[in-house]
């Protein structure tokens, strides 16, 4: 049993009348890989910013490495690596210089920054891009560079806000591989994602957040076991033109497997698929299933119905 590196209790953030995070409790022990899974606007980034000591909480208690972000922001941030949802690399600097100037913010000597920059470029498979302009990198390369930058201070906790959103499947796998290596080295990972498959790959434990509240908590496999019960078939009746040409059926059928937050788990899909057209099964947790509001994911071709 280890003392947690992050401990939140009743953590709350309000913006005026809007409650972005509505009192959540969680603890992250050192070395764990912890995920926040949830739909748009759930409050994931807001939570990350509070843990990252850049946004003050409205209520509750929060300790990161035993310190209160309100009073010890710089000390906490010195031990964090942060990969924000939106890249904020300096596009006017070259790839390697981005790492060096960032390392300087932590008071790391220039020479050490340079050595680490070279190692990290190697790690991020960007060594041949060291002298390129950031603008010339692809989205996946930029993301890897942002992760490399977040590691320049050898952080105890790496915070990743949607690390792979917008990347193609191959780029995602490269990133997962890098993150997996970090995890093996003992870095504590905190990440947010919309994707259950990503959570399954990377997280030891995760919480499902929606509307600023924790809806479910557990290991990815336990959550899948617990909540993926029956298949939910989503039917869409498309026009003649949009309907898929399938013998004997005019309606377009697309079924989706969903995590509680409306994100799909491709891996599970593959395992369970049985019918001819690859069905995707939607399985919101019970907490949601009962709710009349529609949470179905639609994966049919665009422009249907």
């Amino acid at each position, binding site marked *: *049993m*280890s*003392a*947690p*590196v992050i401990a939140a209790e009743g953590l709350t953030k309000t*913006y005026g009348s809007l409650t972005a995070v509505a009192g959540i409790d969680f603890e992250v022990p*050192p070395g764990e890989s912890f995920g926040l899974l949830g739909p748009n606007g759930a409050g994931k980034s807001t939570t990350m910013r509070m843990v*990252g000591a*850049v*946004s*003050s909480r409205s209520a509750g208690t929060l300790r990161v*490495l*035993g*310190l209160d972000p309100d009073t*010890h*922001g*710089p*000390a*906490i*941030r*010195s*031990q*964090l690596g*942060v990969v*924000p949802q*939106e*890249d*904020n*690399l*300096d*596009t*006017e*600097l070259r790839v390697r*210089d981005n790492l060096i*100037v*960032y390392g*300087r*913010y*932590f*008071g790391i000597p220039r020479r050490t920054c340079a050595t680490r920059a070279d190692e990290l470029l190697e790690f991020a498979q960007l060594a041949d891009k060291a002298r390129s302009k950031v603008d010339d990198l692809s989205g996946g390369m930029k993301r890897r560079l942002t992760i490399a*930058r977040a590691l320049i*201070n050898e952080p*105890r906790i790496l915070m990743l806000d949607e690390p792979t959103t917008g990347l193609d499947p191959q780029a995602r796998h490269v990133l997962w591989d890098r993150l997996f290596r970090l995890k093996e080295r003992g870095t504590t990972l905190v990440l947010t994602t919309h994707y259950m498959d990503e959570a399954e790959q990377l997280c030891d434990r995760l919480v499902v957040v929606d509307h600023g509240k924790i809806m479910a908590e557990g290991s990815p496999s336990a959550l899948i076991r617990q909540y993926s019960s029956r298949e939910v078939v989503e039917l869409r009746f498309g026009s003649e033109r949009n309907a898929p040409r399938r013998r004997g059926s005019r309606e377009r059928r697309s079924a989706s497997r969903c995590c509680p937050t409306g994100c799909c788990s491709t891996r599970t899909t593959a395992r369970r698929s049985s019918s001819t057209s690859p069905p995707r099964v939607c399985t919101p947790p019970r907490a949601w299933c009962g709710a009349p509001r529609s949470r179905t994911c639609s994966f049919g071709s665009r422009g249907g119905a």
Partner: protein
Amino acid sequence: MTTVEPMTASALQAAERPQRFGALYIAEHQLRAMRAYGWTIVVSSVGSPLVYLLGIGLGLAAFIDQPVASGPAGPVDYVWFVAPALLVAAAVGVATEEFTYVVMAGFRWRRIFWGMNASPVSPEQICSGLVLSVAARMLFTTAVYYALVVAFGAVGNPWAGLAMPFVGLLAGLAFGLPLLAYSATLTEDGGQFAVVQRFIFTPLFLFSGTFYPLDSVPVGLQWIGWISPLWHASELGRQLSYGSTPGGWPWVAHLAVLLVMAGVGWVLARRTFVRRLRG
């Protein structure tokens, strides 16, 4: 049972250097970024004084037979009168560039302030670091300007005039820091910066006793000079160059106005950075 105490201790220790030198790290980054347009900076720093001093010293001055201004020892060369004001205007010109679009880029376009913000460096230090780097650029600009002013013989007392680059810097900050405080509140450039350039900087440049003494401006417009850091700094520069004009304001008054403007701007700018980056 491992405890977090050793981690806490090393966190506290790791924060010491950034808390002391954070602003310098930011300035270092900004100066590195300025290299991308380093040539523009050098060319404009050398080119614009050349153009103005040649144009006025050799061209315009030849048409002015009446003495425009005088020092304690009587009328002075027109180019003596204009040179300090031009130098000051160059520093203010840097401010209108660096404290507008660069700030918008930091918060919005390149978003680099948010990157800095996730590091141990504080919002106040981000603000100070930015100011430091811009101050360095202003000082470079005014120093080059002054060298050319000396080369053109456009200064009465070249030794006392050595303080002129710093007067220029102070003017740049007195104008620039309030502008920075304003820019940092903007979330979108809806043409505000063009307004600042055209309807604030240009009128100030024209009506601040730059090309003719302020008391030859209609009384109704003289207030523009009084609130203009350009005028106060130009007057200071002139006093360094050839002594005070009879009946003018004492130099401490000019200095005080500039310091107050820069000080108020500084406080407001830092506050805006904190509010924006710690939302």
